């Protein structure tokens, strides 16, 4: 939420020319719009089975134009079991010839920015979906997998945001609401409505995800720390 037109402190808040950004949609300049661009990440209890957790990673918003998974890009869900913010388990997904292959969850020993795929942890593959019908597979171990085109769940007045923070004028820059902030409800709009993303979705029995640790915000709830990474083959 950078600035009013007065631009009092533009220097301190320089976002860089062309850094059109929203919630990791159309991300930082080096990755935004590429096939390794993670646009969103969700993790929630399965509506079908309260003992399962669903992980969904979205890549490549249709706002950026691209619409196919890249065989050089590995999507990796990371799970920290002991609260040290280092991954203990991963779930990996990579496409080959129109199918998405899923590995894990499995425990890893080498952590960090670089990953390899443990082929012995392959749990299944599913045809990549391109239209309204969702191809899904339920594996022998009770894991459900999906990969393909979906409606983008993200919603945000992105055009007003760009104006509020003073990003350069562009296709997604609008005007601010009153006093330089967001719009009133009557005038707000959502440019993500009607757009699509490529989604990788996996539903996993909780027993496969390992131990939990105490919530870092002190709420007393046991949790996994989780995040998703996109990695390209070297």
């Amino acid at each position, binding site marked *: 939420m950078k600035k009013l037109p007065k631009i009092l402190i533009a220097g301190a808040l320089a976002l860089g020319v062309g850094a059109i950004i929203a919630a990791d949609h159309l991300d930082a300049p080096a990755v935004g719009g590429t096939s390794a661009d993670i646009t969103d990440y969700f993790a929630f209890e399965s509506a079908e089975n309260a003992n399962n957790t669903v992980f969904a990673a979205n890549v490549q918003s249709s706002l950026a134009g691209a619409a196919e998974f890249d065989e050089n890009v590995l999507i990796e869900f990371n799970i920290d079991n002991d609260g040290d913010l280092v991954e203990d388990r991963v779930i990996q997904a990579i496409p080959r010839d129109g199918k998405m*292959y899923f590995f894990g969850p499995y425990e890893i020993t080498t952590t960090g920015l670089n990953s390899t795929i443990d082929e012995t942890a392959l749990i299944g593959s599913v045809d990549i979906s391109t239209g309204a019908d969702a191809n899904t597979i339920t594996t022998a171990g009770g894991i459900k997998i999906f990969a393909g085109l979906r409606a983008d769940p993200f919603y945000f*007045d992105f055009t007003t945001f760009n104006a509020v923070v003073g990003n350069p004028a562009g296709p997604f820059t609008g005007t601010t609401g009153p006093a330089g902030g967001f719009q009133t409800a009557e005038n707000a709009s959502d440019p993500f409505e009607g757009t699509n993303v490529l989604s990788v979705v996996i539903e996993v029995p909780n027993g496969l995800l390992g131990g939990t640790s105490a919530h870092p915000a*002190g709420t007393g709830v046991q949790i996994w720390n989780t995040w998703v990474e996109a990695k390209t083959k070297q």
Partner: protein
Amino acid sequence: MKLQNLKYLLAGIILTGFVSCNDDDDNTPVTIVPVPAPTEIDFSGTFAQQDQMGRAAINTVLGGTSADKNEFNVTIPSEMVDRFQPDFLNKAVALHAAFGAEYETNILGLDAQTLTTVLASDVLQVAPSVPTTYFDGTNVLTGRNLSDDVVDVSLILLFGGTSGDRFNGQTPETPILVTDNVSAGTGATGTTTFPYLVSPQ
């Protein structure tokens, strides 16, 4: 969306400084059922990180320069606080200064230092034993549903002050900063069956 009830709920919570106890849950061991990998398919190689995400919008709003945002995407979570929390703090202060204001302790009772420390570790907590949600009136940061308004929650925590409603257009000179006034779209409604995300539009 308003979080007025949250402060009562969390009045007794003491922030422990984000050092978690190693309190392994007692999950019944369940092992995956692997299938043979097709021998003709090559899964070999080393894959190097290009992008990452835990919580939506954090890097976007509180990150610094474009170079900083790029660096954030290739920093592992355990190193994020040391490297980025000071920048996040500066940005939170600057964002308020741009509107002629100072940060005010938020509805969770977090000052700017504490809030930016929580946000700098870009991970999403997910709970197996309570409802998963960004915030549903009772549960806080236990997951993220398709319909959760993460934008409003984030704006409230950053700009909402103690009431959660600090900048909401109360006067003609007061900007709306605690909400973008956009509600869940078609894609966020989700379905009740796997894969839960809605068909493409």
